[in-house]
């Protein structure tokens, strides 16, 4: 059943990438526990606007856990501490009356802060542009059933492909590594016959781009997979390492 709680928020405010940021504290009263976390922030922003103050900038769009736009660090965890959940799917019923909630942006060298809780994740797009595709033009392709793909392989590729590109993995990693993101795409395409032809080049090019963009190295701490809202697993990283090694050996 719905009830209301009072909470205190410590929210990171930062004008832009060059300006120093700071925490500001806000008290919110009578928040319905049925509200989502982002709806709670909407309520705060409405209050701020009515007081003629600058609302808090944060990214969001679909609000159903799939677009990957929302990106809040809540009480020390990307998307909050609940497992396999995005910020927009977190609801206020998970909080207690009187809770103090700390909200920060993704903190990662490759994701500079744009304003407040909004960061620049275009580095992920650039990694995709370096090889996250099968080189096939529109038209002139074989019938969809021409190549049989065993169900377990197709299912595994689907699990890898479920990455939403939110950046929680790199934000959670103490090294700021994007290995889970990169490995998910490399795995999906390396598993499928359509992507095999370019598998080696893809692994090399995407990893090179990741390094170039300032992401850190992977030391297998596993924080990325633990915090991934879509449960993308560490086995993807193992597969990327294999693909990468094979590619290097062939050079």
């Amino acid at each position, binding site marked *: 059943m719905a009830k209301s709680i009072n909470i205190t928020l410590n929210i990171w405010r930062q004008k832009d990438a060059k300006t120093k940021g700071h925490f500001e504290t806000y008290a919110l009263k009578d928040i319905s526990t049925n509200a989502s976390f982002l709806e709670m922030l909407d309520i705060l922003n409405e209050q701020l606007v009515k007081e003629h103050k600058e609302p808090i900038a944060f990214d969001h769009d679909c609000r159903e856990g*799939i677009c990957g736009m929302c990106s809040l660090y809540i009480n020390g965890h990307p998307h909050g501490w609940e497992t396999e959940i995005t910020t927009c799917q977190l*609801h206020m019923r998970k909080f207690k009356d009187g809770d103090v909630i700390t909200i920060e942006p993704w903190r990662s060298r490759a994701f500079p802060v744009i304003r407040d809780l909004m960061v620049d994740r275009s580095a992920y797009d650039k990694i*995709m542009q370096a090889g996250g595709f099968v*080189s096939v033009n529109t*038209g002139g*392709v074989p019938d*969809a059933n021409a190549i049989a793909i065993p169900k377990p392989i197709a299912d595994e590729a689907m699990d890898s492909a479920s990455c939403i590109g939110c950046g929680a993995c790199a934000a959670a990693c103490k090294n700021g590594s994007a290995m889970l993101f990169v490995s998910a795409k490399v795995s999906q395409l390396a598993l499928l016959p*359509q992507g095999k032809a370019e598998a080696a080049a893809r692994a090399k090019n995407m990893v090179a781009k990741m390094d170039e963009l300032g992401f850190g190295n992977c030391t297998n701490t596993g924080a990325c997979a633990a915090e991934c809202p879509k449960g993308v697993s560490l086995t993807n990283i193992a597969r990327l390492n294999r693909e990468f090694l094979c590619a290097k050996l062939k050079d």
Partner: protein
Amino acid sequence: MATIDSKIPKGPLAEKWTRYKNTQKLVNPANKRRLDIIVIGTGLAGASAAATLGELGFNVINFCMQDSPRRAHSIAAQGGINAAKNYQNDGDSIYRLYYDTIKGGDYRAREANVYRLAEVSNNIIDQCVAQGVPFAREYGGTLANRSFGGAQVSRTFYAKGQTGQQLLLGAYSALSRQIAKGTVKEYNRREVLDIVIIDGRARGVIVRNMLNGKIERYAAHAVVMATGGYGNAYFLSTNAMHSNGSVAMQAYRKGAYFANPCYAQIHPTCIPVHGDYQSKLTLMSESLRNDGRIWVPKKKEDAEAIRAGKLKPTDIKEEDRDYYLERRYPAFGNLVPRDVASRAAKERCDAGFGVAPSGLAVYLDFSEAINRLGRKAIEAKYGNLFQMYEKIENENPYETPMKIYPAIHYTMGGIWVDYELQTSVPGLFAIGEANFSDHGANRLGASALMQGLADGYFVLPYTIQNYLSDQIQVPRFSTDCAEFDEAEKAVEDKIKKIMAVQGDKTVDDLHKELGHIMWEYVGMARTKESLTLAIEKIKALREDFWKHVYVPGKAEDLNIELGKALRLIDFFDIGELMARDGLNRNESCGGHFRTEFQTEEGEALRQDEEYSYVSCWHYKGEGVEPEMLKEPLDYEETERKTRNYKN
């Protein structure tokens, strides 16, 4: 009065597209390099069009509002994509997909466009598989299918409950490849605020950089809008927070006809509204109706007890449940089209049988399927949807039925296009949900993904060449001209005017008010009175906006409230246009249900003699009533029947 030329090719329906392709004009590779095309949007239609045009050798300039093209709202489509592959050997064909779509659209779609859509549907599946889209497969390794509403065959391809995501990521990866090659220039976090017309042709856009508020200009030989639907006029919808109808309204104000604005789809299976703080509604995929059974209590006292929290749905005995879709529509049962299922839910709730504290919900029950197939099988098919439901409702749908209610989901109406997907403004094209052509008055499930990708991969890249073939002598444009100056000034003046109000209402306050008007008076059941009232109320609300809106901060800065205000102004105009169109259409068809026009059994009653046409609204200036033009829907192959999903 302007006449409407839909440029439908001559010849038998099944040969029109082939004939068109055989005789259309093309642009040779050397000339393609000299031609620039602006594509607005990166959803299924926009991303597939931008990628394909880039592959062909055109210079593409592509815009999206989000931080990455991968975030467009196509990503949220769950259930699947239709195609006439007939892999299941269950009697499917191109003709049958075409027929189901025309019938599903209540005979208000353009025959030739729908046939072409069915024809290219098979290419889409081939293309996506080649890109590495991980569709669901059978143990033998072939592609799996499931059923969707309005069809008696299994023609829906899917990737778990994330089909839209996988198809969009396929198109996004193709787009990424072209960005790397330099054929596509991508501009993120940009909002298109006007379309620039030079000598009667679309030649560019005025754009607001959402990061710093700077106004930018871009020129091209043609402009393609792939900007989705306008369902957020209702404030609460299944659309993403940023989905909007602003580019459509700019096109309309520049002379592009707005077609059938009143056709909005209300999806039957959404998670019900629970508070005034609510920001959006979440869809539960139609695919759930493959295994879920929809019911409400048979007895009013049971419904009342459930609403009061004294009874649980699992307490209601089998014989006391009313599976009203199975009762009313034995042939299609729970898989009737969306408009039919939505109205039936509203009918039960209005009659006092609704559940949830609000009384505005019905049950979608999986217990029978779980008993029959086992929990594991259900989890494999719908696991992510069940998880999504549990996160929002805090109830476990494996143990208790889901509560669902209809919500605004998709808009079949949109910018009018001819057979070539060109609007009534030369050089301006509209694809995907942004145009009107393929779904008539109601869209079938799993057909939006099909249409977006059909337009972007396989239709526009052909038809746009027919337009561009006589543009090869036109040199690249400079944005340094009077037309761009004028358009930019108009945009800046509008922004200044908004910033100057400094009133006492937030943009969301006003948008919520608009949403209430739309849902109450232009919603699932409309009357002459309600629509007339809606027009008056929207006019008053628009005045209220210009007197009372408050937008903080500066215009030349990252300003989220300003962006929302700009979009809301356009939603006022769309809302009014929807009501006006609904008022004109004295019939019920598909998603447009006029209470005055129904059968004794409460089904939609079309008036084919009078209304077998597309209503095309032509802008005549601010505050002036628009002119309505008619495109007659002359069917060559299809016989118009009353839709029957009973037997």
